[in-house]
């Protein structure tokens, strides 16, 4: 009975099915518009006469996916904390955990999949029509790896927007961007203060020591293979880089978990 009030797969499947059914009514036009904009950008690049590099295409896909991902929470769940419009959602006989997991599925998994799949299919169609104007197909292990990392970082950013969607009652995206900027400035100031306390010279010496061997250890052949876009692939075997990456991934996981736990709490305790 207690377990049944926390999580029930049948209920979770029912709310996810309901929200998937309502997805395109709320967000379909935006998704299609962004796909259209990508195609337009592509055509404009190609009309200029040159070819479009793989990195440019990955960056463009990441940008388009980022836009759709950060706007998704407010488009799909913007009314959840509204005193009148949010009642249908909060009173639906589904547990808070099921609602939160369904929200995660719709905003993070489904939206990201729809967007990247849509953009990659468009890209492939253009490539098949004009293979000479594009360097390569994006469906390769290497490019998918780079795109995967980009998407993971977008998931981190999106989780902040999901929390912002629950915290702010109106102008949710704008206020979340401002809060993100505020946070970045605050962390920057915190670092500056720390460096100031330790002493800038000591900090400089520390980094010099850490990176002194880096140039010697870089595998030059990898630079040639991966290009600038694959810098991560080139340096990933370096111990210092691996340490930084580990810290970064732990930090990302903490941010994502923190934001989603906050969202869960806000759904559970919101008063109407």
């Amino acid at each position: 009975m207690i377990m049944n009030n926390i999580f029930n797969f049948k209920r979770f499947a029912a709310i996810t099915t309901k929200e998937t059914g309502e997805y395109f009514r709320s967000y379909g036009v935006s998704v299609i518009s962004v796909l259209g904009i990508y195609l337009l950008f592509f055509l404009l690049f190609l009309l200029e006469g040159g070819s479009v590099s793989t990195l440019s295409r990955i960056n463009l896909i990441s940008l388009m996916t980022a836009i759709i991902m950060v706007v998704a929470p407010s488009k799909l769940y913007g009314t959840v904390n509204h005193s009148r419009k949010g009642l249908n959602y909060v009173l639906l006989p589904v547990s808070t955990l099921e609602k939160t997991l369904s929200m995660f599925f719709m905003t993070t998994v489904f939206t990201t999949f729809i967007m990247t799949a849509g953009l990659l299919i468009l890209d492939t169609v253009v490539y098949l029509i004009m293979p000479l104007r594009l360097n390569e197909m994006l469906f390769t292990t290497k490019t998918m790896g780079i795109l995967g990392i980009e998407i993971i970082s977008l998931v981190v950013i999106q989780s902040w927007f999901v929390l912002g969607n629950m915290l702010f009652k109106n102008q949710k995206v704008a206020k979340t961007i401002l809060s993100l900027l505020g946070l970045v400035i605050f962390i920057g100031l915190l670092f500056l203060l720390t460096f100031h306390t330790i002493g800038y010279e000591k900090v400089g010496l520390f980094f010099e020591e850490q990176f002194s061997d880096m140039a010697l250890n870089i595998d030059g052949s990898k630079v040639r293979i991966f290009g600038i876009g694959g810098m991560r692939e080139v340096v990933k075997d370096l111990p210092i880089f691996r340490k930084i990456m580990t810290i970064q991934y732990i930090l990302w996981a903490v941010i994502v978990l923190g934001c989603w736990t906050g969202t869960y709490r806000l759904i559970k305790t919101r008063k109407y």
Partner: protein
Amino acid sequence: MIQINDLSFSYSRNKVFDSLTLSLEKGNVYGLLGQNGVGKTTLLKIMAGLLKSEQAACLVNGFHPYKRQPAFLEDIYYLPEEPAYPGGTVAEMGKNNGVFYPGFKMEKFYSLLDRFEVKPEKRFKDLSAGQQKKAHISYALSLNTGILLLDEPSNGLDIPSKALFRSIVAGHINDERIMVISTHQVRDLENLIDPVIILNNQRVLLHAAIQEITEKVCFVTKSDSDPDALYSEETPLGYAMVKANNQELDTKVNLEALFNAVLAHKEWFDEHFKRV
């Protein structure tokens, strides 16, 4: 069953309830009456789990409403005074949301919509406010929840629809269900609500069944005013009065006059009506 024990509730410094105690049993349609700002909607929201109360202060079917557990939510429905309309058609609202309520029947939803003359294939945004209200009432009743909380349900309905609403709600009363209807427009719900709950000044002024009310007070209209009347109001037919029923008259309850009488003679009603 809804059990409210010693409930206190405030909006920042504005105290709405102070030690409110109330017990609502199955098989009744409770009329929740009171002046503006007395806390009718607040009480319904506390019962529905939309506002926080202390766990011991409010129990609905044994659940603390504010926890909003699925087993609690699937047996209660709260229809606000101005419900937000969902995207899509009326039929889609039933199809998409009804699945979460074990008692929901799509055929019943369609049949109620048909009685209210609302087309299921119409999009919500294309309906008038009154038609949207009828669609919401049809949905609320077709969910077959054990507890139904209706906040000013007759607001926005035209005159024929108000009569139809009364008839439909009367057809949905059963021994397993509690309906609580909050309203200002008591005449819209006369002959439907029993018992009556009147809220005033952070507490329950009157909580009594219609039978008890008619046993203790009578509602008469006379050409001359009576100084002993608890309430008297001049009407085209004479003076409509509420008096202590010393002569054991069997009269029909005039809810509006009763409400005014209770507000004017709080002590008398406190003394003569037992608290439920």
